[in-house]
């Protein structure tokens, strides 16, 4: 019973965080698209335009 409750709590936490469960046999994979901010940061860094991401990241830490 306790194990089932833990599993339900876990599933709820993932779904509330925007994950979609996908069953592969007995295994449940929780999937969520990578945030636009992270994708944009990766693209910018790959294009060697790093200043924006780094400064934004620092300003977030300051707050």
């Amino acid at each position, binding site marked *: 019973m306790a*194990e089932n409750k*833990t*599993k339900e709590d*876990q599933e709820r*936490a*993932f779904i*509330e*965080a*925007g*994950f979609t469960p996908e069953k*592969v*046999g*007995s*295994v*449940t*994979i*929780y*999937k*969520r*698209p*990578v*945030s636009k901010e*992270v*994708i944009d*940061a*990766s*693209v*910018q*860094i*790959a*294009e060697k335009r*790093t200043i924006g*991401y780094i400064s934004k990241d620092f300003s977030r830490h300051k707050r």
Partner: protein
Amino acid sequence: MGRKIPQKSFGYLDATAIAASGLAFAFGGGMLPFHFLTGIGLILAGGGMSAVSPLRARRRRISSERWNALSSLVELTHTLFDIETDCDLRVTLMQVNKKTNPFRLEQIALCTCGGRATPSDTGMTIHQGVAGHCYRKTDQKVESMVVNLPPGDFVEQMVELGFEREEAKKLKVRGAYLCTPIIDSMKNVIAVLCIDTGKSGVLKPEHAAMAERVTPFFTGFLTVPQGSGGENG
């Protein structure tokens, strides 16, 4: 006083000198192109030899620095997670090898609770494991994946995730996996950051967000141009 040199003798001497000079110019003129080309050839060969050696050394050095930087980032990610040591947290960076068919995910950096470790030379295809699922895009979306394995036969669960039974038996038993893609400027997945623990139920949604936030820094090192020691996708 001095010996008299007849005028006629100067004439002979002059003629001999002119003839000798003519022969010297003729010889020099004939030999110059041959020596010039040989010289140029030797200079080019020597230049090539002396240029290749430092270039190869530089490439090795940059490649080693790149590996060190990626390993440090993997180590930093491990520290960020701050999960109890008994969970046996591992952070692995797997790079996509597009030279094989099917493409493979190969370990290039690994950090365990004991610190940096030597990555395994085995990998997995993009059709296997949680990392393989993470590589394959759903509707062109790049997605993070979390799996907390239910109680049961680990080998059987790995077979369900695409491994051959013999391959699955060789895998270290784990309880949870978190994989997040690392993309390049074209939004192609070039590597996968994998976090796994010995215990199930340890990895939570906030861990996925944390892993995602470090991936742009991996992109930085994985996408540097070829001349700077990178693979460039």
